């Protein structure tokens, strides 16, 4: 019998982290545990990770250190998979850049994609260009 694949929404993690709606927290916990028991194949997208960071930042005004802690824990859930096999590595590197530089997580993802895929970065963002240069990423204009 094949295992069902279930993609997780940003909101699942927001509720779970804030523990503010008990019934939704319980459902999320059960789903995560079923993933750990290989009863479900759980997927998270890079978009959901970025959105989670933005919800915690703009809606709950959590410090970067706190958001980083949450993001690292999510990437440490071993049974949580990504749509593309490279996404886990790219997410890890994006979070490393996010920790290291004063950039938005979205920008850190762009640098991480460029670094890991050996792509050229095309941006008008001066801060992003500076970091790309430090990280040895080809860029234009």
């Amino acid at each position, binding site marked *: 019998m094949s295992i069902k694949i279930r993609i997780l929404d940003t*909101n699942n*993690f927001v509720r*779970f*982290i*804030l*523990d*503010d709606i008990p019934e939704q*927290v319980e459902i999320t*916990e059960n789903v*995560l*545990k079923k993933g*750990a028991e290989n009863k479900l194949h759980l997927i998270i997208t890079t978009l959901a990770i970025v*959105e989670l960071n*933005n*919800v*915690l930042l*703009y*809606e*709950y*005004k*959590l410090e970067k250190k*706190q958001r980083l*802690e*949450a993001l690292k*824990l*999510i*990437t*440490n*859930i071993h049974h949580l998979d990504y749509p593309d096999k490279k996404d886990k590595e790219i997410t*890890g590197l994006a979070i490393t850049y996010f920790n290291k530089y004063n950039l*938005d997580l*979205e920008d850190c993802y762009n640098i991480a994609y460029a670094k890991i895929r050996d792509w050229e970065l095309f*941006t*008008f*963002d*001066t*801060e*992003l260009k500076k970091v790309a240069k430090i990280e040895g990423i080809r860029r234009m204009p």
Partner: protein
Amino acid sequence: MNTKNILLKVSKQGQLTLPTWLQEFGFERNKSLQAKINEEGELVISSKVTDPIEELKGMFKGAKRNPDFDGLDNREARQLRNKIRYEHKNKNIGHE
């Protein structure tokens, strides 16, 4: 037989400094591993096993929601987040 030497640095407090390549597997430098010499003179490396799911659950319980988002549904909240972000982002590309 092929062998590979790995340099592990252990502080006087028994903390282990991991090579960079090991950190890429999710081990955090100076945090998750401890090293000590036991009574038999063996080097024992141990890790504190934590469950990220347990740590995530309620880790920011009680965080106050920004009142600007009160009464907004998911889509409206997303639009407001994007608006705030791009006001900041535009400064970096010269569109103040």
